């Protein structure tokens, strides 16, 4: 971010005698320059404020109880679940980029995979908070795990909610392992460039004595490939399992076989929208435009367009199936979605998720970072509303008209949502400042001059 008075040191040309050294310098200086850019401070201040809102809200929730939420008969699953599904969805792009694009040999992923993975982990942390908060007795979430306890009881493994515990837990753990393993060589770079004892010790411990031995690289690459192969079905399974929470219920609007692929497509859509939302300011602030190029953003815009069309297809297919089923309850639910008391949220979702990405048909639009940023934010809003529509409209009007009701969120519902963004951005901004934001070793490996000529195969 260039200011009127001084030039952003992050925008200077990276130092180094060759392309590899320049890549190192460009990425490492983000963590090494004495001060981050001013934009970082502003963003961090906002993030910390929201984080304290989160802390106060959780404190008040624990002190008072879940009566502070707007959840009320018949809408007992409300914003905590909406927020959970929203954040889990966001957490899909990172591992998708790391794993699926790796297996598909999409080498452009190296520019964005590291911070997309970080985003995934922070989003899953935000997601994990909500199930713990909404149970009402936040000191009892250990009941979710198969731990021997004084009640001599065990979790119910035939319940999708228990599958969720394992799916989200495994996803978080595997993503973290994958992320950490990817960073080991970059931690070694930071260690070898460190100028203070603290940095050398901290990055040295994290790097675990990595020295770039080819014998080690060989096993490292094999491990990376295996993790990618494991993470690929995992990424598809997580949101499928989350969708089972709804799909195995009998409620019209939830009880649909399209849910798993529909949720996965939506998760990738929302996740990529969050990646571009973070990538555009990050490359601007930290002078990473050479590494995260407009070409990369354009590719992500194309994925957003494609997955946006998929969720649009899913929305229309839900209506078709409701009509084709011949079930009065199903038909009513969908008419109610589009024209009932929550129609505003439905059309907001349609505009954000189906209409807004259509601008990416024009090359001019998908190569303009600021257009991409705006669409990314709009899609994030739309994906939040998608979960709102699914949860709230279906619950508020089900089989029995006498128990219909309207759902009104309270101040605390919103403060927890806003606060979770504070947690997310605080973690993300700390990551930008202290950890290798781009996978340097991977970017170097795909640089044209990295190829050894005359190898004998």
């Amino acid at each position: 971010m260039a200011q009127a008075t001084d030039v952003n040191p992050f925008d200077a040309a990276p130092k180094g005698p060759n392309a590899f050294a320049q890549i190192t310098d460009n990425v490492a200086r983000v963590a090494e320059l004495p001060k981050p850019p001013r934009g970082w401070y502003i963003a961090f201040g906002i993030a910390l404020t929201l984080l304290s809102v989160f802390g106060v809200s959780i404190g008040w929730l624990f002190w008072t109880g879940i009566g502070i939420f707007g959840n009320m008969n018949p809408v007992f699953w409300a914003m905590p679940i909406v927020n959970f599904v929203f954040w889990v969805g966001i957490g899909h792009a990172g591992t998708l980029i790391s794993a699926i694009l790796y297996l598909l040999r999409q080498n452009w992923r190296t520019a964005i995979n590291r911070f997309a993975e970080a985003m995934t982990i922070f989003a899953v942390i935000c997601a994990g908070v909500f199930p713990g908060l909404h149970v009402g007795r936040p000191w009892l979430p250990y009941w979710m795990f198969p731990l021997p306890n004084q009640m001599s009881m065990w979790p119910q493994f035939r319940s999708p909610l228990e599958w969720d515990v394992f799916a989200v837990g495994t996803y978080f753990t595997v993503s973290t392992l994958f992320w950490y393993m990817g960073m080991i060589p970059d931690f070694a770079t930071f260690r070898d460039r460190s100028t203070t004892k603290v940095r050398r010790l901290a990055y040295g411990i994290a790097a675990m004595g990595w020295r770039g031995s080819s014998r080690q690289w060989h096993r490292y690459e094999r491990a990376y490939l295996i993790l990618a192969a494991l993470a690929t079905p995992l990424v598809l399974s997580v949101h499928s399992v989350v969708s089972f929470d709804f799909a195995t219920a009998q409620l019209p609007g939830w009880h649909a076989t399209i849910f798993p692929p529909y949720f996965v497509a939506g998760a990738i859509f929302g996740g990529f929208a969050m990646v571009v939302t973070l990538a555009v300011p990050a490359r601007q602030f930290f002078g990473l435009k050479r590494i995260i190029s407009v070409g990369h953003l354009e590719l992500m815009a194309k994925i957003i367009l494609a997955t946006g069309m998929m969720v649009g297809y899913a929305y229309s297919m839900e209506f078709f199936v409701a009509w084709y089923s011949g079930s009065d309850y199903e038909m009513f639910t969908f008419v109610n979605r589009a024209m009932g008391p929550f129609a505003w949220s439905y059309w907001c979702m349609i505009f954000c998720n189906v209409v807004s990405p259509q601008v990416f048909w024009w090359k001019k639009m998908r190569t303009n970072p600021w257009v991409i940023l705006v669409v990314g934010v709009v899609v994030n809003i739309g994906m939040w509303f998608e979960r709102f529509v699914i949860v709230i409209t279906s619950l508020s009007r089900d089989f029995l008209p006498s128990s219909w009701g309207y759902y009104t969120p309270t101040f605390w519902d919103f403060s927890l949502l806003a606060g979770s963004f504070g947690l997310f951005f605080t973690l993300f901004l700390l990551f930008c400042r202290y950890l290798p934001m781009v996978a340097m070793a991977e970017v170097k490996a795909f640089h044209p001059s990295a190829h050894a000529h005359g190898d004998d195969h």
Partner: protein
Amino acid sequence: MSDEHKEERRSDAPVSAGGLHGILAEYETPSALVAACKKVRDAGYQKWDTYTPFPIHGIERAMGIRMTSLPWIVLVAALTGLATAIALQWWTNALDYKFISSGKPMWSIPANVPVYFELTVLFSAFAALGGMLLLNNLPHPSHPLDHKQQFAKVTDDRFFLYIERADERWDAAETHEMLAATHPVTLEDVYEDESTPAQVPGKIVLTLAVVAVVALVPFGVFAKMRTSRNTEPRIHAMGDMDWQNKFQAQQPNKLFPDNMAMRAPEPGTVAADEHVDDDHLTTGKVDGQFVRTFPSSFKIDEAAMARGKQRFEVFCAPCHGMSGNGDGMVAQRASALAEGTWVPPTNLGLEYLGKMPVGQLYDAIANGVRNMPPYASQMSVEDRWAVVLYLRALQKSKAAPASELTDAERAALK
């Protein structure tokens, strides 16, 4: 970056009296390194390695590195994860804590598949990272190469080849000559690192040991509590609703003169709907004597008899039998089991019962007799009298002389 600090850490001079450890060649491009690798490989060296900032495509073949066994480790871990998931769900839900959910079988494999998958992936991922670290001998805190100043660039933009002195084919002059022919940027001897202690410092070991022991304490407490025979309630970190700000029945309460929380009704209090001012009807007694007549407000007719029969068959017949002979299903079963505590139900057709005042029969129904429980809570006052009426009819049917029958009935019996 302060170069001063670097100097201190990485010096080219032998750090101490340590002997020669190996020879390090530095290259500027991956191609130069790969070309040098082939030479070293063909010369038959075993204890050597290359160090690069990123994995170089094709260097495994140039170095003669064989395929790692890591995939097999991961396969074993995957199968372990699967077996764990199967055992966990089978033991917890089908064996140790059985309960039916949604009409599914106790052991329903399709419903358990998601957890199979998740634990398989989880175990495999740990094995992939852990196996990689293990096979790579990581963490590896110190190495003689760390003292070479140029080696700091190994994670940046330089490529190194290192041959250890411990190699069987090592010959100081010959090895040096061979590497010199590959045109390295630098070619230098590396000395043993004697500045870094070979052992982990005692303080660190002690701290880790103390932390490890302290970390076991909670588990020890849990284990003790699980086998404890203590009759006190469990420890409540959170009270839930176990302690409420209210008085309970047997507690003292200083607000009342008698210091009791439980309030007895005022003498003579009658609950709503309880009292009808007719002892004959409600107790079957007048002046302490059992009545011999039905109460005047109880209307004896065919409807009352039918009602009595119906109630008798619901409440009395299970023990006393449909005809009151004391051979109901419960009695038969109890006799079959020959339980010592069982008192057989009375045969209601016995002569002394036929002469018993109706008030006493009524009293037995309302308040119970011997181990027959009271039925007052299950039968209304009118129903009790109706049962007494039906009982009288039953008794009469057992001991009625032929003279009391009508002609038609006598004819029917023949």
